[in-house]
């Protein structure tokens, strides 16, 4: 394929293949998707690593993310500046961490970050409530939400500080074999 020479150097491909779970073809596919989000901003030639980042609003307009209730958090977590402006590296990172072959530990770390809405490295009750509201799209009454969150906190909080630290979260995820298949975005 002649395209490959003009988009990425071989060294870049090697780096991508070693650091992510993607093959050459998939990297090119990702580049295509990134490019079509903003054809006038994203250059076709990435050999000299241009510093182009797309704003959050463009990224969440992708069909894979458009209807996902956590799309803003996902993009924020993987963006370098935490605000949602993604460079191509962040873009690849996001799909690599959410791909099928990513190991459980990696997915758990990122899931924790995504569900942590106030970015305090703990899943407190407010985080849980926000997650629940996004899941159910406001179908539960506030009383039910409260009850569900306190019950969930009770189940998962092991050290009794009424917040879920990362180890609590990890322990809970380890009991859910579905996590690997549901926490998965296909590109």
């Amino acid at each position: 394929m002649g395209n490959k020479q003009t988009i990425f150097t071989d060294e870049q491909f090697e780096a991508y293949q070693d650091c992510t779970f993607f093959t050459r073809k998939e990297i090119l596919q990702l580049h295509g998707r990134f490019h079509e989000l903003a054809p006038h901003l994203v250059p076709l030639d990435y050999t000299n690593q241009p510093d182009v980042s797309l704003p959050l609003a463009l990224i969440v307009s992708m069909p894979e993310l458009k209807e996902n209730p956590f799309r803003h958090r996902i993009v924020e977590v993987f963006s370098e500046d935490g605000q949602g402006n993604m460079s191509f590296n962040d873009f690849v990172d996001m799909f690599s961490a959410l791909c099928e072959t990513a190991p459980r530990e990696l997915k758990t770390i990122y899931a924790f970050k995504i569900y942590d809405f106030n970015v305090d490295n703990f899943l407190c009750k407010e985080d849980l409530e926000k997650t629940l509201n996004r899941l159910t799209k406001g179908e539960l009454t506030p009383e039910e939400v409260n009850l569900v969150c306190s019950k969930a906190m009770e189940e998962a909080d092991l050290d009794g500080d009424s917040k879920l630290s990362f180890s609590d979260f990890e322990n809970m995820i380890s009991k859910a074999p579905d996590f690997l298949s549901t926490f998965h975005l296909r590109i």
Partner: protein
Amino acid sequence: MAYSVDFNLSPIMELELESLRGDDTAQDSMCQLIRVTGTGLESGSPKTLEMDVLTTESRDRLASQMSDVRERADERRLQRSEESMQTNLLVRNRWSAATLRVLSSMPSRSVGQQSRLEIISQCNIRSTQLRRYHRQTKDVSLSSRPSIRGYGIEADSEDVCEEETKRQELVNNLQSLSAGDRVRMLRAMPLSLAEKTKLRKLAFSDKVGQSILSSQVPCCSLLKRTLYHILFGCLFILSSLQLWQVALKRLGGRFGTGVLSYFLFIRTLLLFNVFLFLINGLFLVLPQAIHPPLHTPSSHRVTGLELFTGTGYLSNSLMFYGYYTNSTINTSCRPAEATTGTGCGTTSDPHMMAYNIPLAYFFTIGITFFITGIVLVYSMSKSFGRSFRVFKSQGNLAIKIFCSWDFKVSKKMSVRLQSENITTQLKELLSEVKGGEEKGRLSGMAVHLLAWSISLGSTFFCALGIHCFAKDMHLRRLEDAEGEVSLVHEARLLALPGVVSCGNLLLPGLFNLMSWMENFNSPIVCLYVSIFRNLLLKVSILGVLCYHWLGKIAAEPEQHGLQCWESFVGQELYRFLLVDFIFTVLNTVFGEFIWKLFAQGVLRRRRKPVFDIARNVLELIYGQTLTWLGVLFTPLLPAVQILKLLLLFHMKKSSLLVNSLVAFLPQSSLLVNCQAPRKPWRASQMSTLFISLLCFPSFLGATVSVTYTIWTIKPSSGCGPFRNLPFMFHSGKQWAQELKSTNPKLAWLNWVHSCLVENPLFLFLMGGVFLMVIYIHTQIVDGQRKIISLLQEQMENEGKDKKFLITRLQAIHEERQYPLSPSSRPQPQGSEV
């Protein structure tokens, strides 16, 4: 398992301070306190853990002034609720700077910290562990306290040069690992891609060092790796071709992981069949096609029916067993000279390449079955490992919140449905938790007994019916064979497959009716019961048919008027496969339509039909079993199955998308009409169950019958590659003996052959070893489960320890600060709450 950690501090406190009791209020205040302290700490930058520069005393003075007001209010509350001194300690906000510093640098606070230093250090530890594991040295200190997770670092220093040294350490560690491990470590690091590329550049720059170190890797892992590549290389290449990637994505996005697993299963079966087809084609069909045997041309009327019945001109084609000769093909031989005897190469040069067809037939079938078996068992064990759950979780609300949203679903409608689904499930779980009563159901023993007896009875009668019908068909065919061969007589051959397919279609409906009547409490139990009944039906049908073919027809072929019983059996299987496919098509196209009418008319509900995953998968497995049974008699049957699977995939996909099936539950439609949507079956367990059903009843049964055929049934003397042999496996034996006589150097092969293939002791030994390995693994898993529960207990105890230490620290500080104040000294007696 939902366990609640009870933070009743009484046992510990009583032992140590002899005065204190804790209760819920203490816990609440403690929690509030920690939260307040926590937010106070983390309101600034999350990276700084050190306290500000205030002297201890001034800070405490300030804190004490602020908390005096709170203290008065607290004391009033305390007096009212008769709390003990220990709770005074906890409630007061006069935490010393020492306590706060200790609290802030607790490892559990810093786990999951996103600072780069933490991540690099953690990766450092892991890579060191990996390196040490390879060099086989033990490092006890790293694993002594699982709660600290082998950190071994100070959590409060954040120098830039510290980061640099850590990074350099990490790079060194990476360089000392093997290439594969390095890549794996890099990929699993939760750093951003830019950082990883930098690390990689540093680590991979030293190519010389890498080659030296890689040679130190033990040779057995290299051997393992090469074997792995050779053995599974072909299959992985095929799967990485990403067949139907776009279609699968659309299906997953629209209907979720459950329905997607059905289509992924179709893809898996397709790969198995492609493998079978390629091997058979290459080693069996192709040589015979290039050197076709001499046949007396028989006149057959070419009607379209031959395609369905497999008779007529097809019966003397490559499709069926009867076509294959028992000759040895020599490459120099011209096809015209090849006879049905030993071939034309006996007098020619013995070093010419001779291709022994019977031997090829025997070994090809054997080896394909062996490899398929290995691949199945391997994928089954991998699937089991992925879906293994240590605890049976009940009331798993937290898991439902965090793990139930399927990120693959992307269509608006499906997303809305998914969120409705989750809402309903949460409401159900909540009602269970609240302890609400379940609706009264007819779950009496009598109903269960009735349902089971009806199901088993119907299965039995179905099998009996098929048995009688088959016997009747044979008699009728015998009569027909004496007369003229007419179209009606040939069409009658399709009667038995038709009846069997009808049974396969109607009886599962009856089973669903039974399930609806029984109204199981747990949908999982309902599902397993329905799968078991369906499986029993299919196994009994196949069992009856195999008995007919192998037990009756094969044993006395002349009685049934057959010259070539193997071809006949092959044709029967071909017919079964085709008719099954036709009925599936009819059911998919018309069955949904009829169900919609029924639902609207009788049940008066505008329900859309449901995609019954379990039933469809069992049909797939049934088809695959037929293929495996038939491969011995019809080497091209996998090709038919491939076509069938391809058509099935596209047909099911279009029917799903056209009908926009709504509920993707594994139960059938009858179950869904009255109740709210049940908890969906866990997706990972689905694929595990499918693969294990494929392996155990299906593949095992096929292997057993093929083995039985090869070992105990006399092949027909008029046709096929094994004619004039007492048993089929004698071809291998003959060849081994020939080898011994012609080439004494290869005599050991004969010995190997006689040991492995003919001696049953070897098989028993293998079976024994296999069982032992399984037993050892189950014991290991049991042991690990026990360790996990012990570790969980340890975690609870550590939590209690932590609470104790904090209160103790605070107590000591207070004693030191206010040695003379009597109000703060813990009283030896505490009041019972």
